[in-house]
């Protein structure tokens, strides 16, 4: 049972729903009575440029589930690839993309979801990092308010490799961005960050699961979000430290601002630790904007909407500052600022 197979078989009963523990806050089964017909093919040449095209050595486009299915980085090679996942129309489509980074290869993967319509889309990514490979993955999810999308990435690390990820999303009618990481320790480093900025009735679900299976691994995770109107955010972060995975250092933080009475944030941070000698911590806060700070800014002459935007931008700025690629950092910062100044 999976979203991809539901789309393939057009059987809505295969969609995950609230009876599935991992999907209880992102119920697709209850939302979609009938899986839409397959999406029509879409000519990539008809598209406007993507958000990261100017930064990339290579642009890979997947339109309505069709297009290049593989990105490879040779041993020692270093490159920046823009991966555009484009959805148009009201159909259903699924795509599968594999990304292989060979020994000591370096990849900056600038991934964008660009949607228009009431589509149902699923994207499955398999990322495989060889020894000492270094990857920064930045995901900018700009789906349609009527779209339903699921992005599922499986990441396999090797000893000495480094994987840093920042997901930024404005949500969709229902949206889930999932990252599962196999962490072998061996001084491999993992950063899994996220930002959600949700308005209207949008929904976003950031789900991560990291399994540390051996000694000497680190995981740093920071997710921050802002919800307003009747939006709903879901954060599920799980870190498993298996028996014997000693000296694991794992930190998880999730902090949300709720800017309206009818907005909702559901958070489930989970640490499962079976090893003895580890440093693990998690923090989770959900609150409103600091009214005292707001008054302070207004006393200095900053009008209320601008003061709110300044403080919320600063709040999520902590996550954006961690993006290493400078050009991409500027783009996502501007993207976020635009969404906060409404």
């Amino acid at each position, binding site marked *: 049972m999976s979203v991809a197979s539901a789309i393939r078989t057009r059987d809505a009963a295969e969609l995950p729903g609230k009876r599935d523990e991992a999907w209880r806050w992102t119920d697709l089964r209850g939302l979609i009575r009938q899986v839409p017909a397959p999406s029509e093919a879409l000519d990539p040449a008809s598209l406007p440029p993507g958000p990261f095209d100017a930064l990339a050595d290579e642009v890979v486009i997947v339109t309505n589930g069709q297009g290049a299915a593989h990105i490879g980085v040779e041993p020692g090679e270093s490159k920046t690839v823009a991966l555009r996942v484009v959805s148009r129309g009201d159909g259903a489509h699924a795509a599968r993309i594999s990304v292989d980074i060979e020994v000591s290869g370096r990849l900056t993967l600038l991934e964008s979801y660009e949607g228009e319509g009431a589509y149902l889309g699923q994207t499955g990514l398999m990322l495989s990092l060889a020894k000492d490979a270094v990857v920064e993955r930045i995901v900018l999810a700009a789906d349609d308010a009527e779209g339903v999308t699921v992005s599922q990435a499986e990441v396999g690390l090797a000893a000495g490799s480094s994987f840093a990820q920042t997901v930024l999303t404005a949500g969709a009618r229902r949206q889930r961005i999932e990252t599962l990481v196999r962490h072998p320790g061996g001084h491999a480093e993992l950063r899994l960050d996220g930002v959600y900025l949700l308005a209207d009735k949008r929904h976003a679900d950031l789900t991560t699961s990291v399994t540390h299976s051996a000694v000497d691994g680190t995981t740093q995770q920071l997710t921050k979000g802002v919800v307003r109107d009747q939006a709903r955010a879901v954060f599920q972060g799980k870190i498993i430290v298996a028996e014997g995975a000693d000296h694991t250092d794992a930190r998880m933080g999730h902090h949300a601002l709720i800017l309206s009475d009818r907005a909702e944030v559901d958070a489930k941070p989970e640490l499962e630790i079976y090893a003895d000698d580890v440093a693990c911590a998690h923090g989770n806060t959900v609150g409103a904007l600091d*009214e005292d*700070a707001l008054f*302070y800014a207004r006393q*200095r*002459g*900053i009008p209320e909407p*601008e003061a709110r935007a300044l*403080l919320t931008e*600063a709040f999520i*700025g902590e996550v954006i500052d961690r993006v290493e690629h400078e050009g991409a950092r500027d783009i996502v910062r501007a993207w976020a600022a635009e969404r906060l100044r409404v």
Partner: protein
Amino acid sequence: MLSVSNLHAAVEDKEILKGLSLEVPAGEVHAIMGPNGAGKSTLSYVLTGRQGYEVTEGSATLDGEDLLALEPNERAARGVFLSFQYPLEIPGVPALTFIRTALNAQKKARGEPEVTAPEFLKLARTKAAELKIDFDMLKRALNVGFSGGEKKRMEIFQMAMLSPRFLILDETDSGLDIDALRIVADGVNALRSPERGMLVITHYQRLLDYIKPDRVHVLSGGRIVATGGPDLALELEREGYDKYARAA
């Protein structure tokens, strides 16, 4: 300049100010002294429009304009500046960004041209040097991790940058050692001018050795119960507030 008349104000339905009247003409520095709980901070928040401070009666005008009808940021744009007793920390916003945003917002509200980045930085460097503030500190998030004294100095720096017309200093001396106090007082005194008015709120007389007031008012029980010259501050220092607390 500032004219407060029969001001009554409540916090959570509890009346704190009970008919306070006060005139501060342009060019003068007035001190408000009083025991804890007299309503000193309430007065500063009512004048600046903090939420939760409800005016039930009376008026407060600046050069004839009704302050109480204005939003906090509109009052700031008219030139009202409050140096907070406990300045807030603003994580993620560098001090310079915050102050430039404030300055340009005020200028925009007044229909003046905004300052350019080079003009702003030049001004910031000059004022920082005068107040002995390390310029690098201004690149850090405003007040985050600053000591009490540094925060107070940052208030005066903001004041110097924004160049307000009416200054309210709420317990600006608390948390300052004698050297910092002198620097802060120099910063405040540099702003004294025939067009500006100041209200210096303090519990202790010490600050008034450095910022010499024209008039001293005693606030007790939500009202001004005595007014005098600078000597009144010395008398209070010597004899305490007991007699005024009884009068209230």
